[in-house]
Every structure is written in structure tokens, then in C-alpha cells.
């Protein structure tokens, strides 16, 4: 038996989180195969094949996989599942959409957002927005799971390529169709893999102030921008930069939280950051309990001063 990693990509580039999934998969000491589903995503398959630890890349190409739907990905995974005892992916909106569907078709449980893989099909994962850790053991014959990317280091890219085999995908699921997408255009690094993240909360007051205050700091630091759910709900920032329980999880070298109160739903998504800096007007804000360095100050004076001083 082998391990199947469902690879996320944009048609051109393999997502960084696939490298973390490869590291997680090494826990089983089984051959690691990577499934690349797309419309001739050859570059992606080549990158996957160069990843250290990958034994085989399975490439499924079809026009309907250019914008893959959960139904098609799940059917594809199930169509090759007989060879695998473990099916895993990094936890993201892509895998959260398709892998539960595949697990149900296989009549097995799925273990979401795994923090630790402990052998004997035993896993540690968080519940209650990261307030509690739970250790669970699966009794199923096939393990289907997503891993919490920031808990696993990225596998390196080597010089020797694993074999790439092409397979045909099942016919397109006829009851759903892709219509369109809106991708946020940004020159900044990707939030999930940025070395520095500057994040803003509701105290910033408006979309204009969010931009005025945080964008220059992020630009100067080469940082990605993040936001709390409160800031996103208030319309200060787009939804795809929301950090937390229901958004993106980040673990940068430096996380600068500006006007962030520090609700557990937010800290769930950033508490693995190496260094956390919090700037807030409220000395009692819970964010200071998870910050390495806290500064109580007027945001509208402190942040421009910080930007100027860097």
C-alpha cells in the first residue's frame, strides 16, 4: 500500500502546502504518491516529481479539471483509492471542499486539520477554535486526513525526478459547473507562506484607514497583509486575508497585530508564529497574552512611526 497526497495548485505552480503534506506523509514510511489533477498541469507535475520523498506523481488531465469541482476531485480520488491506505492533503479551502466528499464515498471518517501524527492511526487535532487538543484514533481501513500546514516543515526540492504517470479521469459530474472566479490581485507575498504578516483588526475603523496605516508598513517589510474576522465583516479587508479559525492559518517569523483584540478565533490562526508583536490602544486586550512584545499606543501615531523607523 502507498500514501496518496492530493496536490493543490493553480495550474502553473504547486502550492507550498503540498511540500508540508509530503513531510507529514513521511510519518508512515510508505511510498508517497502525489495526485495532480488539472488540464495539462505539466509544470505542476514536474515540481511535484522533484520533491524529496515523492516516489510517483499521478497526473490526471481533463478539460473539466481546469477549474476542479469537489465532485470531480472526489470521484477521481475514489477511482484510484484501491492502492492507498492513507489519503491526505494540506488543510485549505480546496481540500476541505473535496476530501470529506471522498471520505464519505469510501465510507470512512475524515480527520481534519491534523497537528500531530502519532502512529497507530492516532492523531492530535484542535477543537473549540484551538482551545482544546484532542487525541483520536481512527478505526477505518483507509485514513483520510488534512494536515495543519504550519506544523510540518516543507519538504525540499531535489534534483532527481520521480516518475510521472498519466491516468484518465472519470467523466465530469454533470450536476455542477464552474462559472467564474475572482482572484485578489496583490504584489505582496502569499499570506500562508509569508515570512512577515501585518494584520489589522476592527480598531482601525475603516477600509481607508486599514489601507493607509497597514499597506505602507507591509510594503516596507515585504510582508503579507492579514485581518481579523471582525475587520473583514466590517468591510475593511477582503475575506481571503482573514486569519483564524474559519480563515487562513499562518506561522510567519514575525506577526504584527495592529488593533487586534485577540479573540481565540483569531489567535487560533496565528499562535504558531515565531515572534508576535501586538500594538493596541487597550492595555487589557487579550492579544497581549499571546504577544512576545506588546505596545500600548495610539495606532494612528505608532504605526506610521514604526513604518518611518524601519
Amino acid at each position, binding site marked *: 500500500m502507498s500514501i496518496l497526497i492530493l496536490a493543490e495548485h493553480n495550474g502553473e505552480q504547486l502550492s507550498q502546502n503540498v511540500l508540508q503534506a509530503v513531510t507529514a506523509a513521511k510519518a508512515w514510511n510508505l511510498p508517497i504518491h502525489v495526485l495532480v489533477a488539472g488540464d495539462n498541469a505539466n509544470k505542476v507535475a514536474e515540481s511535484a516529481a522533484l520533491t524529496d520523498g515523492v516516489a510517483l506523481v499521478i497526473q490526471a488531465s481533463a478539460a473539466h479539471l481546469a477549474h476542479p*469541482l*469537489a465532485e470531480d476531485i472526489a470521484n477521481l480520488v475514489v477511482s484510484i483509492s484501491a492502492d492507498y491506505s492513507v489519503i491526505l492533503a494540506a488543510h*485549505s*479551502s480546496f481540500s*476541505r*471542499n473535496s476530501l*470529506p*466528499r471522498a*471520505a*464519505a464515498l469510501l465510507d470512512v*471518517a*475524515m480527520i481534519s486539520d491534523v497537528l500531530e501524527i502519532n502512529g497507530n492511526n492516532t492523531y492530535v487535532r*484542535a*477543537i*473549540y*477554535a*484551538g*482551545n*482544546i*487538543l484532542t*487525541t*483520536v*484514533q481512527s*478505526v477505518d481501513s483507509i485514513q483520510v486526513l488534512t494536515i495543519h500546514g504550519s506544523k510540518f516543515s516543507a519538504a525540499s526540492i531535489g534534483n532527481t525526478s520521480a516518475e510521472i504517470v498519466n491516468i484518465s479521469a472519470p467523466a465530469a459530474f454533470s*450536476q*455542477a*459547473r*464552474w*462559472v*467564474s*472566479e*475572482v482572484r*485578489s490581485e496583490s504584489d505582496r507575498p502569499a499570506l500562508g507562506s509569508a515570512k512577515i504578516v501585518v494584520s489589522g483588526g476592527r480598531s482601525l475603523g475603516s477600509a481607508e484607514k486599514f489601507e493607509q496605516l497597514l499597506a505602507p508598513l507591509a510594503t516596507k*517589510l515585504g510582508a503579507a497583509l492579514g485581518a481579523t474576522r471582525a475587520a473583514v*465583516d466590517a468591510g475593511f479587508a*477582503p*475575506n*481571503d486575508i482573514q486569519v483564524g479559525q*474559519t480563515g*487562513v492559518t499562518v506561522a510567519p*517569523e*514575525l506577526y504584527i497585530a495592529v488593533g487586534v483584540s485577540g479573540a*481565540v*478565533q483569531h489567535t487560533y490562526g496565528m*499562535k504558531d508564529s515565531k*515572534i*508576535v*508583536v501586538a500594538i493596541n490602544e487597550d492595555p487589557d486586550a487579550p492579544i*497581549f*497574552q499571546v*504577544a*512576545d*512584545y*506588546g*505596545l*500600548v499606543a495610539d495606532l494612528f501615531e*505608532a504605526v506610521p512611526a*514604526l513604518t518611518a*523607523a*524601519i
Partner: protein
Amino acid sequence: MKILVAIKRVVDYNIKVRIKADGSNVDIDGVKMGINPFDENAIEEALRLKEQGFATEVVAVSLGTAANQDILRHALAMGVDRAILLDTAAELQPLAVAKLLKVLVTREQPDLIMLGKQAIDDDAGQTGQMLAALLNYPQATFVSKINKQANEIIATREVGGGTETIALTLPAVVTADLRLNNPRFVKLPNLMMARKKPIETIAAADLNTDISARLQLIKVSEPAARKAGVMVDSIDELLAKLRTHEGVLA
């Protein structure tokens, strides 16, 4: 169009959950409970689809014990037409919930099934996708916008790096993100009236469904806390710490 909304009873999102002294499970005895927030968005959207003339009936269902009547009455007070309790004391995991809901869907024949995108207790985020799989229905998860066109649901999904819009042929499963809508406040007279409405109870045991736990709970524990940090008095002091102590800034 008939809509079935599945709702879960969870610990109130403001409560910090503790663990039992022996680490065997979380301690939620006597803790304030309520409807899972994402499920409330699902109810709200179903009601709006009815108010817009797209749906004729909205039915809410919850799985659990008689205690779940409180959230079903909340759903009735919001405006759903009927409420069903799938009565079981078993600890249900997402696959088991999906299997029980599948039986109910076969009985109720809804055109659209709505759920929250995840529950804030187990944070699994699987039930809607699993139900869609078992029914072989199309699915739209993490949905922030819905339009109805002819026999299709046009759904905008919140995904990494932006949004995606897909079209589903009915019947279909949709899971709600928080930004789908702002749920209406329940007025006291509506809550009073909801108390008098019947809740249909179906014994889950009578549905002959495998609801066995596939994940055995070994233990629960508290995550390691981050080490206590220090407060700085100025930007200069902050920068000095980051540059010299931590070396994270040039």
C-alpha cells in the same frame, strides 16, 4: 422549492471550554449552549429564499436529545415552517450525521439542503460535503452569496485567494459562511409562539443506519501556552528588541 436546514447545538461561542480533571473529555455540563452560528446563517438564507418566492417550505432538523428542542424552537421563532428532532443520545461524528440526514432527505425530498460550513465545537467542516456525497448531489461549500436561476442555484464560494462562483442543478447541498447574511433577531412574541408549535420527533434508532464512531477519543488536553511576553514603551524599544534580541528585522 422545499429547503431542509440541518442545525447543530453547540457550546456558546463566548464560552471558554474546560477539560475534565481526568482528561477524558471536555467538561460541558451546565455550560450555555446555542445554535451553531454558521447554521443560523443557513436558516436565515433559507428564509430569505422563501421570502423572495423561491422556496415554499423551510424545514429545520437537529440531531440529538430533547435538549436540542431549544435550537429548533429558535429556528421556528426565526420563521421556519416545521421542525424535526432526530432523537439520539449517541455522540455523532460527521459521517454518522450525514448518513442520518440522508435518510431524512429520502423521506422529506427537499430540493435544497442547507447547513453551516462547520461547527464551532469540533471544527470538522465535513457534514455538508459528506451528505452531498452520499446523495450524489452537487455541493457548494463556504457560500457567501446565493442566487436562484431556473432550476439552478448560483453560489459564490469563499476560497483561498478570492471567490469562486459555481452553478448547481437541484437538488443540491449548500454550506453557509458567516458572510452569507446577518441572521435576523428573534422577537420575543415569535419565541413565545414557537414554544407552542409542535416538534416532530423521530427516533434515530428506527432509521437502521450505521452511526458507529470511526474515531475513538483517546484524550483531550490543553495546548501549550505561548511564553509570557514583555511590554515595551516605545517604537524605538520595540525595534531594538526585534533587531538585536530576535534578529527578525534588518
